[in-house]
């Protein structure tokens, strides 16, 4: 990649969302699609111009100026009756920006994306587009969606963004509390998308986790954060600490039991601890509980020496706040390792009656694995084979295949 392309890519990542937002703030006559087109145009112009003239000293400023001029021309064209002078235009920009109670433009956009009327998935997608400045292809790859799927979702979102000026209007101070919890959810989901492996993406997306941490850090540095923000930060850091050990040298997925604990990043664990201590308060959120669970895993010297009893108790609290079949599955597993095997199998058997979970490979894999540990190889094989059929992800099929092979060796 040449230097100019590199500079343009770097600027794109830093400024795309801000450029779009600045155009939207500057004029109510520009809709999001047009604003994006103008910014794209400016980048194309930059690539041509800079090859001839060289990269200007203030390359970002150059882009803002070109965008502004392009927008100005567009408005003039659309509104011949009311020509807007440069001065008036500048004045509108300044008033719009100075009205804001947000110091950080990126945070302001983030809170705009956390609009309660949009689905959580849409909130994540538009955040990745306008705040993190990812290109559509990259969003699709990161979220395990098709490009077409992301485009369609953005198209529907744009309609709403335009009609309700979602990126334009700053949420009312009274709405900030609700917005903050949605912002947390967006960051949490973005992190999880990077952390888990799903269909369509085979590797862990460390970049996405990093973006989530950066957004949350910006939130922590502002006056808008609360104790939940700290807990969320701790949770993400505890999980990040284990990042490198989740894939073996040969590229296979490793579960907690088989990870090389010496590869866990102790600096990140310490940092996570600091945030976890800072997050302590009376109102315990799901982030607090999940961070506590992640913490207990991080400080355990080995899988066997993990404090499963406390983890079991934490899952019970999590179920009280948000009862859902995933949590119940994890609860059952913790219960098994805490020593209550009968109780664990009872929950797992009940979960098989669940319409969704029964079709989902994780439940059958868990039941298979626990049967295998109990020495019920025939039962274990049945469940593991079922799980292997249910997942479409090759890495997960291989992972289950390995457990099945081990059983073969034993018999």
């Amino acid at each position, binding site marked *: 990649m040449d230097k100019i392309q590199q500079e343009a890519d770097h600027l794109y990542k830093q400024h795309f969302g801000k450029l779009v937002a600045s155009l939207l703030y500057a004029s109510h006559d520009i809709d999001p699609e047009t604003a994006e087109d103008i910014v794209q145009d400016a980048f194309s112009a930059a690539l041509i111009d800079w090859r001839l003239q060289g990269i200007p000293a203030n390359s970002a400023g150059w882009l803002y100026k070109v965008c502004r001029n392009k927008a100005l021309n567009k408005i003039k064209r659309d509104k011949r009756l009311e020509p807007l002078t440069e001065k008036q235009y500048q004045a509108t920009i300044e008033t719009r920006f100075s009205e804001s109670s947000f110091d950080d433009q990126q945070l302001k956009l983030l809170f705009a994306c956390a609009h*309660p009327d949009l689905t959580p*998935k849409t909130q994540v997608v538009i955040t990745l587009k306008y705040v993190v400045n990812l290109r559509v292809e990259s969003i699709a790859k990161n979220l395990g969606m098709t490009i077409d799927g992301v485009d369609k979702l953005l198209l529907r979102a744009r309609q709403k963004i335009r009609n309700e000026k979602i990126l334009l209007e700053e949420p009312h101070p009274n709405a900030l509390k609700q917005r903050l919890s949605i912002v947390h959810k967006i960051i949490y989901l973005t992190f999880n998308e990077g952390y888990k492996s799903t269909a369509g993406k085979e590797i862990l997306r460390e970049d996405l986790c990093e973006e989530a941490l950066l957004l949350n850090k910006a939130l922590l540095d502002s006056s808008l954060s609360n104790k939940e923000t700290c807990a969320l930060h701790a949770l993400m850091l505890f999980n990040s600490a284990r990042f490198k050990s989740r894939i073996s040298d040969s590229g296979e997925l490793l579960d907690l039991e088989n990870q090389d604990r010496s590869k866990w990043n102790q600096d990140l664990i310490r940092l996570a601890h600091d945030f976890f201590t800072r997050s302590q308060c009376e109102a315990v959120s799901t982030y607090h509980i999940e961070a506590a669970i992640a913490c207990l895993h991080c400080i355990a010297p080995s899988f066997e020496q993990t404090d499963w009893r406390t983890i079991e108790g934490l899952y019970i609290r999590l179920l009280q706040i948000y009862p859902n079949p995933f949590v119940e599955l994890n609860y059952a597993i913790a219960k098994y390792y805490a020593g209550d095997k009968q109780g664990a199998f009872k929950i797992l058997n009940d979960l098989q009656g669940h*319409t969704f979970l029964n079709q989902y490979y994780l439940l059958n894999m868990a039941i298979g694995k626990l049967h295998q540990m109990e020495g019920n190889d025939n039962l274990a094989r049945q469940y593991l084979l079922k799980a292997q059929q249910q997942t479409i992800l090759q890495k997960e099929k291989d992972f289950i295949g390995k457990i099945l092979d081990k059983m073969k060796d034993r018999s």
Partner: protein
Amino acid sequence: MERFMLIVREDLKRIGRLKTEDRFAEGPDMTDWIKSLIESGNYIGGEPLAIKGRYVTQNEVLSDGPFIEAKEGISGYDIILAENLEQATAIAQSCPMVMQGFAIREVRPIQPFIFKDPV
């Protein structure tokens, strides 16, 4: 967050003629949709409903009831948490069955029951 019931409505006469396996095999895969709702903390529960049931009024019990003939009869439900009716609607719109035209969804806020204080 408030609770909503997303009612699934389909042509019951048509599904009534299908074998149960075929009924569930013909629609789109719902696993990813439900999984993402669980991950985002919006899913509470849901199930499909069998087609044959009973219809009870003050005077009689009908074995089929009018619903069996219904073009848009209730064939299942999901209960979700959402910020507001708009978000619940947007979630219902993103259901694969709706997107691919297999079913329609009725979005109904669950009304918290209000007890009258005893006098």
